[in-house]
């Protein structure tokens, strides 16, 4: 009856991409086997002062090698701890968790903003349709080269140092991008802009959301977001990001 457990995965590589962004590959065959783009893992810290798991999106999946890639930004103690792990070290993980993106439509626009970019990579790889990729940064870019194999990449930066100066919507407009389905992950203001853009143009949009989590599996109700309609599980206008998401249709969530 038990389906997923906490696993001890082995770190097979750890590379620093920018001053504060790291890319780590971990190996656990079972976890990799079940993984889909848009899902996430709960990562546990070794420090006994930090009890709660850190949710991190799956950036790439290698089912053959049984490995998963995680790209994360160091923002606090937990991610700093992860950044000190070396190849051969182990890490406890739970997952894959959440629902992931759902392939649909024929002309996709993939939008990633900041640390919301990593989950779009495996999606870009797996989507078997026309796709345009939009990546938004503050200044320094990362992962953008890796996306180029999977589709044409447009970039926006807040300071204008690369691509369009402004945000991802500015880049979409500047590049006259069109599509019938949007997949997006990034900060709330970006998702809000994407939702407005999608509604305005009558395009479907799947948005990946983020919130502080405790259980990661839908039991504690820590990680909710507001939903337009009453949610069948919670019976109120709240959806659990960890269990019902992290990916939602734009119209499902109030942001």
């Amino acid at each position, binding site marked *: *009856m*038990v*389906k*997923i*457990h*906490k696993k*001890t995965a082995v770190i097979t590589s750890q590379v620093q991409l920018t001053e504060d962004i790291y890319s780590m590959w971990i190996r656990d065959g079972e976890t990799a086997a079940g993984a889909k783009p848009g899902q996430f893992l709960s990562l*546990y*810290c*070794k420090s*006994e*002062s*930090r*009890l*709660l*798991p850190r949710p991190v999106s799956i950036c790439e999946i290698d089912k053959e090698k049984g490995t998963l890639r995680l790209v994360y930004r160091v923002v606090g103690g937990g991610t700093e701890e992860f950044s*000190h*792990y*070396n190849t051969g*070290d*182990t890490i*406890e993980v*739970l997952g894959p968790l959440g629902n992931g993106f759902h392939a649909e439509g024929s002309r996709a626009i993939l939008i990633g903003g900041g640390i919301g970019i990593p989950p779009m990579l495996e999606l870009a790889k797996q989507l078997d349709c026309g796709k345009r990729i939009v990546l938004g940064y503050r200044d320094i870019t990362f992962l953008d080269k890796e996306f180029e194999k999977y589709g044409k990449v447009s970039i926006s930066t807040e300071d204008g140092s690369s691509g369009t100066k402004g945000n991802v919507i500015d880049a979409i407009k500047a590049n006259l991008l069109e599509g019938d389905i949007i997949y997006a992950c990034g900060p709330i203001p970006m998702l809000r802009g994407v939702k407005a853009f999608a509604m305005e143009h009558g395009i479907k949009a799947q948005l990946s959301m983020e*919130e*502080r*989590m*405790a*259980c*990661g*599996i*839908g*039991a*504690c*109700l*820590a*990680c*909710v*977001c507001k939903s337009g309609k009453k949610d069948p*599980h*919670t*019976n*109120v*206008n*709240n959806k659990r990001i960890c*269990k019902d998401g992290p990916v939602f249709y734009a119209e499902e969530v109030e942001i």
Partner: protein
Amino acid sequence: MRKRSKYSYCSESLRKDSGLERYEWNMNTKVNIAGIEWKNPVTTASGTFGSGLEYSEFVDLNQIGAVTTKGVSSIPWTGNSTPRIAETYGGMLNAVGLQNPGVDVFVKRDIPFLKQYDTRIIVNICGKTTKDYCDVVEGLADCDVDMLEINISCPNVKEGGIAFGQNCCQVEAITKEVKKYAGQPVIMKLSPNVTDITEIAKAAEAGGADAISLINTLTGMKIDIHKRKFVLANKTGGLSGPAIKPIAVRMVNQVAGAVKLPIIGMGGIMTGEDALEFIMAGATAVAVGTANFIKPTATMEVIQEIENYMKKYKIEDIRELIGCVDRV
């Protein structure tokens, strides 16, 4: 870096089975709380285990003494804004604000789910007024659940909650009212945010409570010094996890010396060793809360480690251990 050292959670000797089962150690782990027999003294702490559905992927619910559900109110509650949780050193703050689908959905959906399993069902109840509580209790009177746990201590509800749980007269009064409508034994769940927990426990006893559970969370706060704002949308939240265990054990021990009622102890239980500390302090049963988030199989591990202890020290009956440390 090496594997996370687990030693502080549970000593090697209890994690590893001491192996005595070879010559078939006969032991009793059953406990009786207010006339209800549990197969072992371990339940889940309300709010940390949903209604069991999600954790049933990790835990065989048939193996735990009782499942205590998330607090349920007469009508659906939306709960607080997010962020609802914050991590602290060896613990966490939560201000979920008792979001729940309301008693009707709960009765139709969650009770039938739990009835599939051979475990006791304890329904945790919250409310903003005495009438709210009584409505839920009355609504459950004919339902197939085993016990009711009345949360008069949630710090996240401004209207009722905290006020009820911090004042002796109100505790006695609400206990009396609830008992009028209850079809099942009533457990009063106490708040640790009080000057003298024994006074509150005595008030619950005077009101006719059948059992007492403690502790609920301690009110705490976290500030993000970089943003210079509160981490929780609700500003304050309830502190749980191993950080609070010494306070919880102390309160269980004090209450065990002050009332005759059976006690369900909780607060920071991560291992069988922690659970045994509560039992020795005077608890008849224990609840595992925050630990579920850290190890989804925590309840089962706690049960296993208690059994390992009993084998190691050749304890035939768990009841020998209840309150076996001297009273303060």
